[in-house]
């Protein structure tokens, strides 16, 4: 009913190869973007913009980065938070030390710095795979946080090692209000998600997936393993770096290296596992699940069941329910929420005559 494709003929190759070949998907996405860009800033409260949507978007971008590396290129990484830290600290230092540095350029340079570091820590991936590679990226996680704490130049000799983001200004317009910040982050995330989607369905993405599925076979058909793997590290770290810069500038304002610890890396990894490994929409779904569900549970327990439980039971209960839900969803669909949606869509397309 919803997904009836009768009458949608594709007469050119371009029409067949577009991102969303089904018209309903195109309309749906246009609606979603219209809501996100117009309705949300008009109607959402400050609380929603600042505390819910902002972290959701930033972590979606980070999860997107990790998904490129782990989901598409098959290289397991535990260093996403560290690459975010590189992006945040690099953007801060570019803004601080270069006079008149434009904000967006600083974000991009922050991403590039993260990409360089990512490539450096991606070099072991040429020799080692799987869990061993995870350990190598774990080293990146600890090393980067350590060096950002150790060398006080990175934090401009702040005694406590924290950086405070400069004001955000583009062409004289200051991003002060929550709405403007939200729109800036949303625009960056939307553009980068589009770029990611195009990358993974082009030759680059195919090469990544070939390497993921079987690197020997990929080499045999002429894919340069070193180039492909390092490119995946670079692109992934770039995304994480920009996410880190947004985390520091648009979301928190002041960040410390400790904030980018292993816990955050794990969280980003869980996002893509829950959301769907090797899927762009999975990064968004997973980020929504990991960021929003605990908040929802806390609101539920503190407001709706206020006084029913003692405070410590209320807090522990949230963790238990959260863990239970993770296991539930993984049992229902081990390939993540994105796969769940995909199955639903396929069923809808065949409805009412499923086979």
């Amino acid at each position, binding site marked *: 009913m919803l997904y009836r494709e009768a009458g949608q003929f594709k007469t050119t190759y371009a029409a067949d190869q577009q991102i969303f070949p089904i018209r309903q998907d195109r309309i749906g996405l246009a609606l979603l973007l219209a809501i996100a860009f117009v309705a949300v800033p008009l109607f959402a409260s400050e609380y929603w913009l*600042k505390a819910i949507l902002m972290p959701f978007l930033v972590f979606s971008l980070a999860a997107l980065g990790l998904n490129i590396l782990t989901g598409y290129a098959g290289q397991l990484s535990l260093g996403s938070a560290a690459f975010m830290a590189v992006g945040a600290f690099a953007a801060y230092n570019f803004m601080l030390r270069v006079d008149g540095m434009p904000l967006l350029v600083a974000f991009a340079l922050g991403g590039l710095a993260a990409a360089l570091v990512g490539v450096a820590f991606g070099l072991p991936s040429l020799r080692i795979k799987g869990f061993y590679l995870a350990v190598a990226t774990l080293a990146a996680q600890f090393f980067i946080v350590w060096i950002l704490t150790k060398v006080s130049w990175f934090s401009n000799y702040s005694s406590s090692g924290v950086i405070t983001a400069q004001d955000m200004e583009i062409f004289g317009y200051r991003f002060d209000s929550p709405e403007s910040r939200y729109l800036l982050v949303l625009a960056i995330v939307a553009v980068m998600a589009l770029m990611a989607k195009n990358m993974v369905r082009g030759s680059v993405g195919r090469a990544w997936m070939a390497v993921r599925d079987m690197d020997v076979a990929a080499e045999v058909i002429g894919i340069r393993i070193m180039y492909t793997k390092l490119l995946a590290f670079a692109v992934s770290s770039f995304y994480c770096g920009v996410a880190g810069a947004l985390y520091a500038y648009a979301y928190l304002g002041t960040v410390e290296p*400790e904030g980018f610890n292993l816990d955050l890396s794990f969280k980003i990894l869980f996002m893509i596992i829950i959301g769907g490994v090797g899927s762009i929409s999975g990064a968004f779904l997973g980020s929504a699940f990991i960021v929003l569900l605990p908040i929802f549970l806390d*609101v539920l327990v503190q407001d709706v069941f206020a006084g029913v439980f003692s*405070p410590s039971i209320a807090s522990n209960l949230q963790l238990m329910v959260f863990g239970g839900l993770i296991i539930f969803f993984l049992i229902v669909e081990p390939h993540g929420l994105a796969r769940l949606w995909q199955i639903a869509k396929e069923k809808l397309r065949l409805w009412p005559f499923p086979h």
Partner: protein
Amino acid sequence: MKLKTKFLLSAAAVSSAFVSSAVLAQASEQFIGLPSYRVGAYAAGGSGIYGGWIDYMQLINEKEGGVNGVKLTWEECETEYNNARGVECYERLKSKGASGNSVFQPLSTGITYSVLDKVAQDKIPMVTIGYGRTDAADGRVFPWVFPMVTTYWSQNTAKIKFIGQKEGGMDKLKGKKIVNIYHDSAYGKETIPLLDAQAAKYGFTVIHIPVSHPGNEQQSQWLRVRQEKPDWVILRGWGVMNPTAIKAAAKVGFPREKMVGVWWSGAEEDTVPAGAAAKGFIAAGFNVAGANYPVIKDIQENVYKKNKGNMEDKNRIGSVYYNRGVVHGIITVEAIRTAQAKFGKGKVMNGEQMRWGFENLAIDSKRLKELGAEGFMPDLKVSCADHEGSGKVKFQQWDGKEWKVLTDWVDADKELVRPMIEESAAKYAKEKNITPRDCSKEG
């Protein structure tokens, strides 16, 4: 299809929960949002401190019917000691109650940094007692942030004074050797420049030895201590690092009586796991342990007898963390009182009025006696320029069963600390284009 209905149902539940969370404004209730943490690695601190704080506010409600008739209300929000969750709690709590959140006290340096810019925009005072950003003690640059009672830097100078006392005078420190074992993080590193400055001033040598997080393996560090044969060891640890350090000290035979910890290494949770090895260990604290203070007895009498207490484990009443929570409660309530004295008794204070209350907070020893907290916490006088207010600590020693107070209040070396605070704050002001307030114009 089944799953789809489930999704729809859960989505409906989400939206209804957020709608019902809109709290109706109450006329004469002062709302205090509590970004607590009761799960995870730091749950012991969170549950103790927030428990003591809630109990004290309950005491004020039960005994006095609130502050001049204004009832105190509060709501907890679980942060899990996580920065992003802390920001969410801050945003969620900030506009609740009749006049918004009165004060934000996150008990986490990370969350303090995360909301540092926001509190000034939203006009909600942030009080960080014994943690947070040290240079915020310069109230001219940070009007909305109050690192009250004492900062890490002040505390550190008091520690050196204490060591000096033990050695028989500050001049006896010359030629002594002090090892600083610190948690290798922003928190742990914060006192290094200060210790170096003091070493130069008093002529002792200081050796900094880092312990990487979480610090449950310290063999090599303590072998180094044994080689160096220091006269004193300063332990700047937290969490599992503390009992490990104490046990490792026992193993290499370093006397625990010569080990001085910060207040985050001076609770029962730090010494009990170390067992007999902890006997003799000394720690600084801006509050003392013990249930024999009138204010704690009052809580027992008026709150727990009526079964309205917050602590599940009643044995923790009077512990270091619990009493620190009571200090949080006293400071919050006294600030409301101070604000009401200026802006109208029996009225609900908004964020700006609360800020005035904190900035003009003065709890002298006479007032402490009235509150039943004499000797329980130091006297406090906050001002526009000085948001720290005291800088005094007491030193307590673990006797194997409980903390015993060793000293009276030891003052910080303000002449050394204050210029460093001002320098650091001025740098921040320059980075952020803040013009420091002129304190002579503040009323």
